[in-house]
């Protein structure tokens, strides 16, 4: 186990440096002067040379590439990505204060999708080939192809515009501060329903398919055939022999899901004006606030890396074969 753990962690460290190199390359392959990165403009027109020189010095752009990469690494390790172009507060602070909002939304979407998707996947694998199951798997496959922003648009149109059952966007109502505690909680929940619904459905289809293929793979293995040959009844084979093994790969779901959820957050948070990191990312891109953009790119990649290492380790604990085979 410790050998596997050591190898996995060593890979993770390498991948981390890969992430820093990719982001560093991204900064330096952008057309034009990297100075424009830090003044929030598309060019250096109209900016006094003295100011440019000062910025160049402040961000170490007057040093060699290797030295600049060193400064970039140092910034990442100390979580110091420089001040935001918008309000001159540290980019990292702005991210940290929005992270809980994104987490709340994604956690609900993750929980809903897992609670509904996994049982559906198990069910459809156990009835594989039946007419009704084939029909439902097509439906789930089609769900996968629905653009999330279109679904969000239709949800807004139906629930918020036509029927005014739920708020159209935002995280709280205008009169939030005047509400009682119970009223505030209800208000927050109401604002969460549509965005979390829009984030959930695609995940749901993904989990159902993932679970189904995991169980199908187990069903085709020799020990299931052996159990059947020994005369174990159909349902007992499924419940006692197959399900337990099929649940193993599900621990990797967390690692697989986080990047998808974060990607979805950019669209859904922007549409619902949800004050999270996805929304922040798009607004920073549009206003050329590159310190925030770079900070978010690195932070989300590292979070994804962490989740994938965690789920690999959990998988290795749950399934000893992984450690021996050295999967991945």
């Amino acid at each position, binding site marked *: 186990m410790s050998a596997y753990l050591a190898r996995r962690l060593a890979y993770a460290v390498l991948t981390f440096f*890969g992430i820093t190199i990719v982001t560093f390359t991204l900064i330096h392959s952008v057309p034009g002067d990297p100075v424009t990165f830090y003044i929030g403009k598309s060019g250096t027109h109209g900016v006094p040379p003295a100011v440019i020189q000062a910025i160049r010095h402040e961000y170490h752009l007057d040093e060699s590439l290797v030295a600049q990469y060193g400064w970039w690494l140092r910034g990442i390790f100390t979580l110091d990505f420089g001040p935001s172009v918008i309000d001159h507060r540290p980019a990292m602070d702005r991210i940290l204060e929005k992270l809980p909002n994104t987490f709340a939304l994604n956690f609900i979407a993750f929980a809903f999708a897992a609670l509904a998707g996994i049982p559906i996947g198990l069910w459809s694998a156990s009835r594989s080939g039946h007419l009704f199951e084939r029909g439902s798997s097509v439906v789930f496959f089609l769900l996968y192809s629905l653009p999330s922003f279109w679904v969000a648009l239709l949800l807004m149109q139906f629930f918020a515009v036509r029927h005014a059952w739920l708020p159209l966007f935002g995280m709280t109502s205008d009169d939030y501060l005047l509400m009682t505690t119970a009223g505030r909680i209800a208000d927050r929940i109401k604002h969460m329903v549509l965005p979390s619904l829009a984030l959930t459905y695609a995940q749901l289809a993904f989990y159902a398919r993932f679970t189904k293929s995991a169980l199908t793979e187990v069903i085709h293995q020799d020990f299931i055939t052996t159990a059947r040959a020994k005369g174990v009844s159909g349902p007992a084979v499924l419940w006692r022999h197959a399900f337990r093994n099929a649940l193993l790969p599900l621990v990797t779901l967390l690692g697989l899901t986080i*990047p998808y959820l974060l990607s979805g957050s950019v669209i859904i948070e922007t549409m619902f004006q949800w004050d999270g990191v996805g929304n922040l990312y798009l607004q920073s891109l549009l206003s050329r606030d590159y310190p925030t953009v770079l900070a978010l790119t690195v932070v989300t990649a590292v979070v*994804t890396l962490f989740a994938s290492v965690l789920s690999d380790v959990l998988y290795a604990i749950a399934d000893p074969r992984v450690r021996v085979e050295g999967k*991945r």
Partner: protein
Amino acid sequence: MKLQESGSWRDIWRRFRRSAIAMIALVYVVVVAFIALFAPLIANTKPLIMRTASGLQFPSAGDFFGEKEGIEQLPQGDVVLRAPIPHSPNEVDVAHRLNAPEHEHHFGTDDLGRDVLARLVHGARVSLTVALLAAVIALLVGSFFGAIAGFYGGWVDWVVSRLIEIVLCFPFLFLVLGIVALFRPSVYTIVIALGVTTWTDAARYVRGEIMRIRELDFAQAARASGARDARIIFRHLLPNAMAPALVSANFSVATAILTESALSFLGIGVPLPAPTWGGILSVAELHIEYAWWLALYPGIAIFTTVAAFNVVGDRFREALDPRG
């Protein structure tokens, strides 16, 4: 020994054909591709055929390779045949802004009075161009890395695996949006951004397939006859590993259509005034109170096209590996 049992392209096609859903999806893909290819002849203000003093003329055919800037003089003469949708995608008509679907505009008009159906037809052109180019880049890059990783194994395989791991660490949309915005949104930057982020699937498919076939007799024979590595990989192995890579290409096209429309929806996509499905939806968001037709039709266009590519890819994969 998958391919040996399942046999040739003909066998794959025979199994694929058995699925009614797969055939419907394939026909739909062909129809959308046809619409995309012939968009200037389907939706155009200029007539298809005109009879003039100097004989027959075909004014809309000139738009086939991109519409010309500015106002164009139509030749003098009688219109013989109008385009099926007699509106160009960028024909502004402020007198008919946000008109609900009616006889003149079957799918209604947008906030500048442009015909939604015409924009959808031409939007298919933009979407499919971006998606196909992105899929080709993903396929080329992915096949290359997958092939050398599968053929050499060892440290080459290790390096490619780390590379894939690094790419997959970035949330997909973050990376695509970042690249597109940093390098200025255009068809090319979107294609490149999608290509460099989605090649990993093709690489994994090709790697597995090459590993499986590299020790088979025909590969041994090529090696025995003294062929160089590059020749064995690209002439002998890769063509035989193409089938699974094409499965992943179908999925990349689907992902690319979804992503391109998301980018256009967010305003960092193909620049205006190019008609895009996502672009129409972003106008729909502004007029969500009443302009339902702006939200409905482009959404259906994206959904059905993406679904068709996904279904074709999925059934193609099943046809390759009947046991799976």
